């Protein structure tokens, strides 16, 4: 059976070089936890590109449609009242007046939709307990997740990680959602 062990690095440069080093040795680096975004790491760990911006566009489109429907229904279809002679009997004639609301609701839906998606996708919700291999992970430690196929290879892997510049190696089992 396979398990994950954690290499702790003290600096993002060490981490990056460490990963390169381990990969060259054919060690499987699954993931990394860092106190701040380390650019380029996603390539090394070949994390797929996120499609969250596309989602956001979808939400935005929905917002626009909703707003247009709402204004049409409320101002024109349900009851077109003569308000200061504004042509509420024709949607397109009075459309200019509806643009601000449409725009706002577009932004509203896009922003909130995306934010919510992000939280759900990354399992970030109040009450979720975060798996923290090293207490200073969110301060200045960089944790690399290395998965090892079978117990026998464990010590070898630890050796590799140590040699790749990790300050220490942790052997705890954590539940990653």
């Amino acid at each position, binding site marked *: 059976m396979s398990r994950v062990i954690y290499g702790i690095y003290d600096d993002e440069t060490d981490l990056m070089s460490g990963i390169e080093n381990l990969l060259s040795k054919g060690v499987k680096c699954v993931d990394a936890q860092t106190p701040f975004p380390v650019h380029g790491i996603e390539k090394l760990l070949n994390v797929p590109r996120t499609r969250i911006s596309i989602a956001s566009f979808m939400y935005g489109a929905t917002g626009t449609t909703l707003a247009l429907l709402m204004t049409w229904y409320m101002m024109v279809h349900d009851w077109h009242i003569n308000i200061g002679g504004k042509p509420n009997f024709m949607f397109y004639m009075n459309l200019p007046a509806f643009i*601000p609301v449409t725009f706002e609701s577009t932004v509203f839906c896009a*922003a909130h939709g995306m934010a919510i998606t992000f939280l759900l996708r990354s399992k970030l919700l109040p009450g979720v307990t975060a798996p923290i291999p090293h207490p200073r992970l*969110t301060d200045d430690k960089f944790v690399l997740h290395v998965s090892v196929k079978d117990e026998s290879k464990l010590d070898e892997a630890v050796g590799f990680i140590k040699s790749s510049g990790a300050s220490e190696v942790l052997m705890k089992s954590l539940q990653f959602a």
Partner: protein
Amino acid sequence: MSAAVNAQYEAVVRDPLILGKKSYHQMTEDICRPVEGKANKYWWMAFTVSATTMTWGILCLCYTIGNGIGSWGLNKTIGWAWDITNFVWWIGIGHAGTLISAILLLFRQRWRMSINRSAEAMTIFAVICAGLFPLFHTGRPWLDYWMLPLPNQFGSLWVNFNSPLLWDVFAISTYFSVSLVFWYLGLIPDLATIRDRAITPTRKFIYGLLSFGWKGTARDWLRFEEVALVLAGLSTPLVLSVHTIVSFDFATSIVPGWHTTIFPPYFVAGAIFSGFAMVLTLMLVARKVLGLEEYITTQHVELMNKIIILTGSIVGVAYITEFFMAWYSGVQYEAYAFQNRAFGPYWWAYWSMMTCNVVTPQLFWFKKIRTSMMATFVISIFVNIGMWFERFVIIAVSLSRDYLPSSWTMYSPTFIEVGIFVGTIGLFFTCFLVFARVFPVIALAELKTVMKKTSNQYKKVGILKKEN
């Protein structure tokens, strides 16, 4: 050094944005100190003062609700004065936050990182203060919810989408909620830091809840940055639209002095102008009180002052353009409205606006003034006053003399009105002070990404910048 880091190496000639000898841990220590440590006596003094004014404001508000809007100085001709003036003023102030965090992010301005967190917080609080006025300036505030797109009891009477006030409802609520989200998402990793540093279980628990179980894996960071980028992309047009729509309240009306197509750009510029001024006012206090001189440096201040010169000048041009248009349009009402501003009974309001907004910022052309903390502080206050007067001049003075001279009246505020305004200032600072004690005032994680590029230790710039 690895390729990744090399790629981000920054030219030595740029002034450092972080001073002193800093390690990641050191930064964490510095920035978490205000949150974890005890509040110093300055904080308590400030808090007491602002909390008291806030309470006073609440009392005045209650009085108004109990007795009616008549307890303000308004009359048959001047239906809006301090209330909407304050609303626009606060909204304007709010804009700087979004601007700094969103637009400067899109422009990849690194210097924004030390200030965007608190600037965003400022946005939130300013919008809260602003929101109070439209909510409570109505004759029957308990019916405000009728302004939401709901049918009336009998079903088919909705709301009027022709009305700029309704646009406001949408704009302000969107703006507020989006800024809130933007700000909070940014906070999550830093909250996680505090969570992991927490000693007491309660702290751990609370920050655990607040940080939504942040774990900082590569995937998270990837999405996190993407989200930040897209939100910035959304907030930029949003922030522009909000003040545009606020300006529509006036631009789409027929009141001479309100009915002006120049308003949208002019209001947005004004908003940024006042916003930056307020950011400066707060930052200059915060960096002293919270001891963050090494993160909010002279350079930050100078850069912001440059933006103030720019926006200040834009506003100045707008004022002149208005006058030109009033004359050029050949509409006597329009022409009179502007003559009346400058030479009418409210001339003092107009000229104090001119001095504060157009003249004082020009002092920033001198580097000495631009880089002096004291001067900046004073001028930033001036700008805030000036921008308040701008709104007063536009709103109250235009109303006081419109089409039929028979209805011309004068306006003077009651202490209730003043009390409410002062109260919102109290509210604003109370919120900000609490924020400074509870959340890291500087975007920690974000700043760490640029530490190596901008801290002078890594730039090997021998001498530390002299603080003044």
